[in-house]
């Protein structure tokens, strides 16, 4: 126990080391030849206690898979997920089986992307939010009802509505129900998978504000998965950028948005439409689509779409390396390239 505890800083709540999640695909006429979708490939990442870490990338880059590995919906293929429990012990979640995982499930919770399909239509709100409490024998009967009422109040819903079914609620309210369910067991780390993507702009702001106030009240750590870079900038303290199963850049939010060091981050920032007609920017267009994760390109996965690519990029895979001030990047030319941040792109370079 003690040796893995030494691998973790005391202010970190989670540390991923070379985490891999590979899904087998059967191909060929006899369904024999097995290939692998490397949805998460050698991801190493730390999360500090009480922070919000944003995880961004295009669809299919493995952000959701990574989130699901952390809460152990999936059993990772290889690697380590070190987690510091409330009592200060360090455990490797990858090693744990179903029973061993049980005590930590209460501390690691997830909210899901689609507020329509992630709530069972045949259960009332009371059953949905109360289910984790009942399963973990926290409380039952009148006490459970009080707890649910309390939780609903916290997320801005009326406790009188707890006997209603999900269909009676709007998208924003359903997202609140999902958040209440995640908070029921006093978690320490919440993986919020595209928490606001399905919502309208005005409601989106309400949910973001709610998540911020809950973070203060419950001292939560968030892994905030999103493809919307402006939302992530608003809520996250640090941001990790993923591309085809690998991390390409991790930095504090202001660092990443002001001076990105990976060409992919620059291109992502540049692709975000600005809500100001006076800033119609000269965009950096990314050509082509995201590569197939079964047959990723050689070398740096991003090189076929990268406008700074050189011969070396097609041959050598750049390692993720620290370039100082907690800024981690996987690019051969991170120091040499002069990339534009969010503000410079808006000014047109």
């Amino acid at each position, binding site marked *: 126990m003690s040796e893995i505890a030494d691998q973790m800083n005391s202010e970190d709540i989670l540390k991923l080391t070379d985490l891999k999640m590979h899904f087998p695909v059967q191909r060929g006429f006899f369904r024999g030849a097995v290939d692998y979708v490397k949805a998460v490939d050698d991801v190493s990442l730390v999360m500090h206690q009480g922070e919000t870490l944003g995880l961004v990338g*295009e*669809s299919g880059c493995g952000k959701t898979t990574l989130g699901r590995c952390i809460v152990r919906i999936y059993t990772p293929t290889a690697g380590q997920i070190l987690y510091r429990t409330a009592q200060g012990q360090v455990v490797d979640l990858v090693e744990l089986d179903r029973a061993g995982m049980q005590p930590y499930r209460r501390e690691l919770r997830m909210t899901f992307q689609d507020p329509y399909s992630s709530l069972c239509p045949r259960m009332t709100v009371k059953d949905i939010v109360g289910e984790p409490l009942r399963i973990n024998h926290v409380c039952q009967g009148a006490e459970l009802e009080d707890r649910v009422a309390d939780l609903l109040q916290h997320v801005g819903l009326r406790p009188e509505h707890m006997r209603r079914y999900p269909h009676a609620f*709007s*998208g*924003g*309210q359903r997202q609140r129900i999902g958040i209440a369910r995640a908070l029921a067991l006093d978690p320490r780390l919440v993986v919020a998978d595209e928490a606001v993507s399905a919502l*309208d*702009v*005005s*409601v*989106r*702001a*309400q949910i*973001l*504000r709610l998540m911020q106030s809950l973070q203060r009240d419950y001292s939560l750590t968030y892994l905030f998965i999103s*493809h*919307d*870079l*402006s*939302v992530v*900038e*608003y809520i996250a303290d640090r941001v990790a950028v993923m591309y085809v199963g690998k991390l390409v850049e991790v930095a504090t*939010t*202001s660092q990443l*948005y002001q001076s990105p060091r990976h060409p992919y981050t620059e*291109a*992502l*920032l*540049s*692709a*975000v*439409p*600005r*809500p*100001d*007609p*006076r*800033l*119609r920017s000269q*965009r950096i*267009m*990314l*050509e082509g*689509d*995201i590569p197939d994760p079964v047959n990723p390109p050689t070398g740096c996965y991003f090189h076929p779409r990268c406008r700074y690519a050189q011969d070396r990029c097609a041959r050598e895979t750049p390692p993720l390396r620290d370039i100082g001030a907690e800024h981690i990047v996987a690019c051969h030319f991170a120091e040499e390239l002069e990339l534009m*941040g*969010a*503000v410079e792109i*808006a000014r047109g370079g």
Partner: protein
Amino acid sequence: MKDDLLLEVKDLRTHFPLHEGVVRAVDGVDLAIRRGTTLGLVGESGCGKSVTARSILQIVDKPGRIMSGSILLHRWGQNNEGVSSLSETVDLAKLDPHGAEMRAIRGNEIAMIFQEPMTSLSMMQTIGFQIVEGILLHQNVSKREARQMAIDMLERVGIPNASERVDAYPFQLSGGMQQRAMIAMALVCRPNLLIADEPTTALDVTIQAQIMELMSHLQNEMGMAILLITHDLGIVAEVCDEVAVMYLGEVVEFGDVDSIFHNPLHPYTRALLRSIPKLGESKKMELVPIEGMVPDAYSRPEGCPFHPRCDVVTETCPHQHPEMIRMPTGQLVRCVHYNSVGEPLA
């Protein structure tokens, strides 16, 4: 400005009589689109943007029906000196949705692209078949010529290997490529107006940027007007010339894109702009959510429909339905805070 109008929507009302009551999805919408320009139609889900667009093409789902109003399509011709002049005007709202005249316009003069390319393309036919079908319906060409036109169009929307991809089924293409195929299908008959209903909502930001770039490029080349329906104010700011903001079935503000973003007049427009994080400034700014939520379709508030959520609500708002007021700047706004000569009241 009056001389280059392409489409005018006047006091359009499209209602859905249901068991629970009448849903007034579109309730008095006025719009004007000029030739070759892009009009953005923005609003939250359920505000009637899509129903407005579908009313223009007369493809409103049952039991929805256009109750009143007019949709004037102006046709422009060129005289001998090449000067274009108005040749005729048709009221689309008066046409039979299934009649020959409407069918001749649909997909030909006015084309539409839909939100989800995966569900709006037929999965049983190749994309080439689906494009050729539209050409043969509207143009007097042989099958071989039509196929060549389809290939040319696929090339123009940036599909690599178009002469092979023309025989691909939609599932063989990525989301971005499917949306390109949809655009090819919509533009192959050279429409004067393209209605794009959330064309990039299902796509990633990088692919979204590619598609928006492609659409404005093709617009410059072919000179069509675009009615862009979206909830993303960022996209509106990037590509639109004029913007109409909708709330609960009516247009609450209409103006050129710069005024809408830099001098918004209606409290709803202002609130929308305050509620979105801006890239590069998000850490400094505070997000101000709009209180409450869009009321449900059966219980529309009396008076100004926005009054229960408005932060500058007055005593008259719950009773008086505000008229559309033209401001000296040309902006149109529907709010009691502006008087009939277009000045803000204190």
